[in-house]
């Protein structure tokens, strides 16, 4: 993806737009929200961001408004994490930050400064799958596969949090991950199996 182009465009605009004067108008909240998204964005310079993603260290410079999801997908090409709603309502975008599951569409990239992010791409060790990936394969825990990365990341989180003791438990703590194909029964089976396997995840 040609991110350079896009960012260059914005920087040009910033120069042209007598931005420094504009910055003195205090809090961007004063500008009518929605109407001026792009202008507000243009007033901000990029900020540095250092983080680790799937074991690799990154030194980036991002706009403060960029979500972790967009950073992963659009700037780093890690498209395994999916966007289903962008509003925290479907769970497709679930990743781990310092081992905890979060909706990456609801998290600004800058919030992960200094942290360790794991995405679906970071689970397997080469060819060797993570136990949860194996269990999803074995139990056919998907149909179209679009929700699957989020389900798997969330499922690992669910077990780590100690919330997978019963099938009922799993249902409760996986209810934030929508699967429109309705692969739910198999998803529950997959998670229960990994839980019973007792491996440290």
């Amino acid at each position, binding site marked *: 993806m040609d991110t350079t182009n896009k960012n260059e*465009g914005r920087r040009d605009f910033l120069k042209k737009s007598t931005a420094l004067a504009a910055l003195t108008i205090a809090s961007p909240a004063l500008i009518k929200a929605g109407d001026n998204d792009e202008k507000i964005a243009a007033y901000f310079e990029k900020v540095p961001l250092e983080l680790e993603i799937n074991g690799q260290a990154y030194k980036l410079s991002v706009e403060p408004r960029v979500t972790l999801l967009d950073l992963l997908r659009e700037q780093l090409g890690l498209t395994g994490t999916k966007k289903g*709603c962008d*509003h925290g309502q479907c769970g497709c975008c679930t990743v781990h930050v310092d081992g905890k599951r979060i909706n990456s569409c609801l998290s600004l990239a800058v919030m992960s400064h200094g942290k360790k992010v794991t995405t679906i791409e970071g689970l397997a060790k080469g060819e060797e799958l993570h136990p949860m990936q194996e269990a999803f*394969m074995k139990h056919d825990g998907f149909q179209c*596969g679009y929700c*699957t990365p989020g389900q798997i990341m969330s499922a690992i989180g669910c077990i780590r949090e100690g919330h997978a003791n019963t099938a009922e438990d799993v249902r409760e703590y996986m209810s934030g991950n929508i699967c429109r194909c309705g692969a739910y029964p198999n998803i529950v089976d997959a998670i229960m199996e990994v839980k019973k396997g007792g491996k440290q995840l």
Partner: protein
Amino acid sequence: MMNIDSYTHVRGESVYLDDIPLVNGTLFASVFDSPVAHGKIKSLDIDAAMKMPGVVRIFTAADIPGENQIGGIIADEELLASTHVHFCGMPVALVVATSDEAAKAAVKKIKIEIDPLPVITDPREAKEKNELIIPPRTFQLGDTTAAWTQCDYIIEGSTATNGQEHLYIETQGAYAVPQENSAIRIYSSTQGPTQVQRTTARVLNIPMNFIEVDTTRLGGGFGGKEDQASAWGAMCALAAWHLKKPVKYSLHRMEDMRMTGKRHPYSSDFKIGLNKDYKIVAYEVTFFQNAGAAADLSPAVMERTLFHCTNSYFIPNVKATAYSCKTNLPPNTAFRGFGGPQGMFVIEAAIAEAAAALNVSPILIQQKNLLKTGDEFPYGQIAQSEANECWDKAVNLYDLQKLQQEVDAYNNNNKLSKKGLALMPICFGISFTKTLMNQARALVHVYTDGSVGVSTAGVEMGQGLNTKILQVAASIFSINPERIKVNTTNTYRVANTSPTAASASSDLNGKATEIACVAILQRLKEVAAEEFTADISSIEVKEDCVFVNGKQTDWSWNKLVQAAFVKRVSLSEHAHYAPPGIWFDTTKEKGHPFTYHVYGTAITTVTIDCLRGIYEVDSVKIVHDFGKSMNPIIDIGQCEGALVQGIGWMTMEEMLYDKEGKLKSNALSTYKVPDIYSVPKEITIHFLETEKENLAIFRSKAVGEPPLMYGIGAYFALFNAIKAFNPAANIPYDAPMTPEKVLMSLYPQTLKENK
């Protein structure tokens, strides 16, 4: 065999439209859509939007070089509104910018002035005003007028079923990349690549052979990407054609929900007559389909409602009339079941109403009227029925009597919690009801290293089609499945495809693949026969080896393939399949439209909380007619998934438009789809394996749509649970049965007093 996409699915490596690596210089599109449901456009002001950072160009109807038309069945829908808008969410302008955010920000700057015109959202009102998409149609069997005199009981009523948002987790989208000589490649998240190609050709006024549509897979379709994917493909192509730059548009969830059509809401009237033996003697039904603002697939959906208006029952006298009513909602479209579920709900409601009036169990009436082989459907086809087999098996296997006793005992012992049980038989015809669409082609190449590539017209959207196609090729060639790759669906490789729909795609594309593989295999066998100077009938290819008279030779599959190539024998085949024996005469409304029917029976048990109105589906126990399933893992997944979607439609998915035609349930926060917590606690599926001949691929019957209709059982189980609490409850047949409606039905008196 496991779904062939399993490995990439769990690793996040499966590629969907939004994951395709972008070509340098790609631009991003976003639509400005009408904020008003009906009106005349007075002015459209794009000046401020044009000045927004990153905006490259804004397209309107005036920029369309060809026809501003996307209507498939009827040419009644503009790609971009020119003079009038007909629904909230109708695309008016397309902003193209250097980033997705920039395009979306500029959309907000567009101003439109619209002189409002009257808005219709109710199909009955549309019918009154004669706003119809096509003239009404009537299916008739016997003579209902005469039959009423033979009835001991006649019961009438009305029903309503709401629409349903597809909510494919991958939203709609397309990505158009210009090619040399003004050709265009479109990556599209579509069930109908040819439909995207045809629509784009029409809009751009260029021939179809200049447009390549390519689809790897969909993150769900469910019918929503059958016709409704075309607009986005055509729009991206329009922009790419003008700008000579790649243009991508991946819709935001809220854009998608606002602008696309859904399952058709229906409002219906019924009149049912029974004799003393509870045999249904006559049935009259009138359907008012809420088509939305343009035809889209509504006429075909309406037709299927008529086909399935008697579900699994034989009724000697039937008169079913359907109106496709034009309203100012987004054009409603295909959704798993395609009008069938809407038709079946009404007959089930009629039976429930009759049972209540006669004070018998609806199960008795259902059972007494099940279709038998030899019975005639209202459209003239003679049934090859498995209805009784499925029903009896379910009743015995799951011990209906005991289940019913458990429910009764529970209800006797619990005051504020009640259980309900319902049976739901299904019968669903397989084939496109438009006979001409029942054709498919497959292109099979065997490469000189022995590997095989298969391309078909079918689109993989989670239903496991590609896995089944691969199984077909592997089984005909009798080679290791790992040698075979199923390729993307591409209009340059396989042309003039029907959309992947109607549950028929494994049959159509599977058979075409079978024919192609058989032809290649035949040629390979000829080569082997010559080599071993044996009769061709003594040659077999088995497990990657050549056998002569049952004895393994030292010729491997690879050696055979190479020998054929050296002999200049073709290793490729393009095959065509059109199922025989199907036809339909719309002037008489009679024929034999379906290659076969799929049957089944589900027993659903629910528990309602009589203080709060909330409920749980305890179990759904199914006997389903799979024919001879060629992939039980996939077929069970389809069955469970369809069931859950059906339950969602019948219980919790409440689509709401206001009087102005604005969608209120416009996000996942306001539109509830089944989550993992709301699916039945227990789903049991028993395979009714039938050895009878049928026209399904390897006799493995279609499974995509039929199980959705088991979900209707959840509605009636809730209905019965409410009755257990309040036998006098007068429950309207108005799906979905949301917890709110359950609560209101439990306490109708309180409701009245508080009004």
